[in-house]
């Protein structure tokens, strides 16, 4: 069957399965990825079918996981490693930033680093500290890394295929609160490039740009705005490094207004980069300054306050109002 309706977590699972089947060099590594199938069950059943040599339960050591993945990649393997939660990537941050990202350049292009780092990220699941963070800007800031985040099951499937096939390291941010959202996956479709933004909904009055968990919120905002007679275009960026500024520019030239939405703190966040670039590219088209909606300059709050912290429909629509008021 080439078209299936799958939750995002299962789409990733199917994608990993396909990669393990087609390329003997692909390895899955991480804490609890084997017998348990990962704490979100994304790797469920893979060890059973491919064995402990391909789907590897690692010691509880993130620096070790990424550091050894680098070595395995040097030896010709294509490791796909799981970091259990966003807040636990930092023990590995040194290996990612100082080693993984720079290896290709330092070897004058002679070696490749086909490592995928999967990170369930973002809030909205009522978790404890360090389980709800959005550190994508910290990675996008580092040259040598690709940083992507799917928002649909189809993208989850295909972007994972592309990430594994990429000879560059890819930080693959999985929107954990969307893991159970279902969508159609056509396993025979030919996908566009990994970094290509997608127009998730067409509109004429304003562009909402988002990625990962916020795409759904923006689509809902667009539906709500329609009732007020406003036509919002929603752009799913899909990739935070590189960013598809061409698609974004086309959209903004049409709508003349842009609001960028992400969960991560606004300060020094990806919205800042997008606002600056789009202002440069579309200065004479813009009717309003590019606005940003996101998290605050505060630690991710305890679960009972996350609804206040995370951008929801109201905050997005509020920004839309402000933009349209210019």
């Amino acid at each position, binding site marked *: 069957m080439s078209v299936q309706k799958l939750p995002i977590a299962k789409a990733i699972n199917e994608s990993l399965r396909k990669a393990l089947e087609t390329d003997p060099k692909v390895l899955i590594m991480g804490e609890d990825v084997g017998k348990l199938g990962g704490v979100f069950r994304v790797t469920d059943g893979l060890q059973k079918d491919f064995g402990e040599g391909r789907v590897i*339960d690692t*010691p*509880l*050591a993130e620096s070790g996981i990424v550091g050894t993945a680098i070595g395995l990649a040097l030896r010709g393997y294509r490791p796909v490693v799981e970091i259990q939660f966003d807040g636990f990537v930092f*023990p590995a941050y040194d290996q990612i930033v100082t080693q993984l990202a720079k290896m290709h350049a330092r070897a004058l292009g002679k070696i490749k680093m086909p490592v995928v780092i999967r990170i369930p990220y973002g809030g909205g699941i009522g978790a404890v500290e*360090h389980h709800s963070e959005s550190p994508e800007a910290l990675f996008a800031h580092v040259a040598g890394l690709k940083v992507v985040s799917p928002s649909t099951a189809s993208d989850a499937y295909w972007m994972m295929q592309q990430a594994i096939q990429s000879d560059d390291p890819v930080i693959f941010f999985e929107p954990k609160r969307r893991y159970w959202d279902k969508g159609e996956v056509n396993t025979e479709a030919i996908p566009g490039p990994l970094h290509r933004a997608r127009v998730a909904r067409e509109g004429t009055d304003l562009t909402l740009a988002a990625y990962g968990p916020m795409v759904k919120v923006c689509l809902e905002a667009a539906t709500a705005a329609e009732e007020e007679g406003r036509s919002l275009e929603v752009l799913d960026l899909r990739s935070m490094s590189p960013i598809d500024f061409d698609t974004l520019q086309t959209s903004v030239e049409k709508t003349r207004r842009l609001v960028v939405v992400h969960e991560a703190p606004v300060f020094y966040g990806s919205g800042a980069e997008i606002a600056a670039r789009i202002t440069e590219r579309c200065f004479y088209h813009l009717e309003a300054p590019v606005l940003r909606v996101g998290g605050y*300059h505060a*630690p991710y709050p305890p679960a009972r*306050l996350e609804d206040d912290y995370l951008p929801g429909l109201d905050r997005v629509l509020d920004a839309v109002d402000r933009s349209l008021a210019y």
Partner: protein
Amino acid sequence: MTVESTAARKPRRTSGTKRASAKKAPQPKSSEPPLVQLLTPEGERVEHPDYAVDLTPEELRGLYRDMVLTRRFDAEATALQRQGELGLWASLLGQEAAQIGSGRALRDDDYVFPTYREHGVAWCRGVDPTNLLGMFRGVNHGGWDPSTNNFHLYTIVIGSQTLHATGYAMGVAKDGADSAVIAYFGDGASSQGDVAESFTFSAVYNAPVVFFCQNNQWAISEPTEKQTRVPLYQRAQGYGFPGVRVDGNDVLACLAVTRSALERARRGEGPTLVEAFTYRMGAHTTSDDPTKYRADEETESWQAKDPILRLRRYLERQGLADDAFFVALEEESETLGKRVREVVRAMPQPDSLAIFDHVYADGHALVDEERAQFTAYQASFEDADAADGSEGNGSEGGN
């Protein structure tokens, strides 16, 4: 300080307290490393040449009480999670002896760095158990002042706190104080670089720190063999300080071994690694499903080593506690459970603006600006509600 001054190779205290009447501890199978034990699973007292404890009946009953109340608290928290009152709970079921034994070895001026499961140690420090629940309910990220009871905040990022403990201990030594520091962590944590680095630092600087590893056999789904090929306590040797494996379900042995390690630290002889060999009877947390990865037989075999039952057998056999004691304790447990339930249910929803509190000790312009924006944004809803109300039915609106 130099490496030489660590004096790590001083012989261990052989206190000569061996009693003529004492039974010998059962010898472990040759494949298993030695385990310090003072109370067998059947509740029989045995002696160990290096570790002696001589407790009054009252002290023994005290340890029993601590374990029973800690278990009751833990069970209540698990139930509260099931009822939706807590978002998550990390149960200590089965690890009461390791925590109460080590916790009762501490002096008030010692400092504790826990991970996220040390509810029994918190109990020994006098931390109100309901304070531990705020972070699991999702109303705060800690909820107690670490300096009140010298009990640091829970640490969720695995292994991080062992370095904090080491640094704190380095400070204690610099100050010339004779306090000791204890860091708790799990067998999984032993794989983290931070833990290895804390071993290095504590050895090099001869820090007065005790590393208390509760080897509960599992790190979520991964057994200890996925973390190490040598018994964990033997790691210490490579860093130049002693390591000892203690029966983690034996509260007396945990007390004796921890006490001895703390005294060693106080004497300026540096760190010790204590591996408490124990078992996580429940799930890793309430989000975990252990049936996916471990066999019931294993769990059942550990049930026979229950730390509470073991001490109860001893107390009863020796006539150290009567029925009245157990009945009163049962009542005390119920009262504790009830109080925990009530306090948790009454925990107020935090104020939204708390997001912006304590981000910095000094002010910060951006935080101030965002707080003001957020306040205005919230007020806009109240205005809108008020307007809706007057339009609709003339009521005041808002809420």
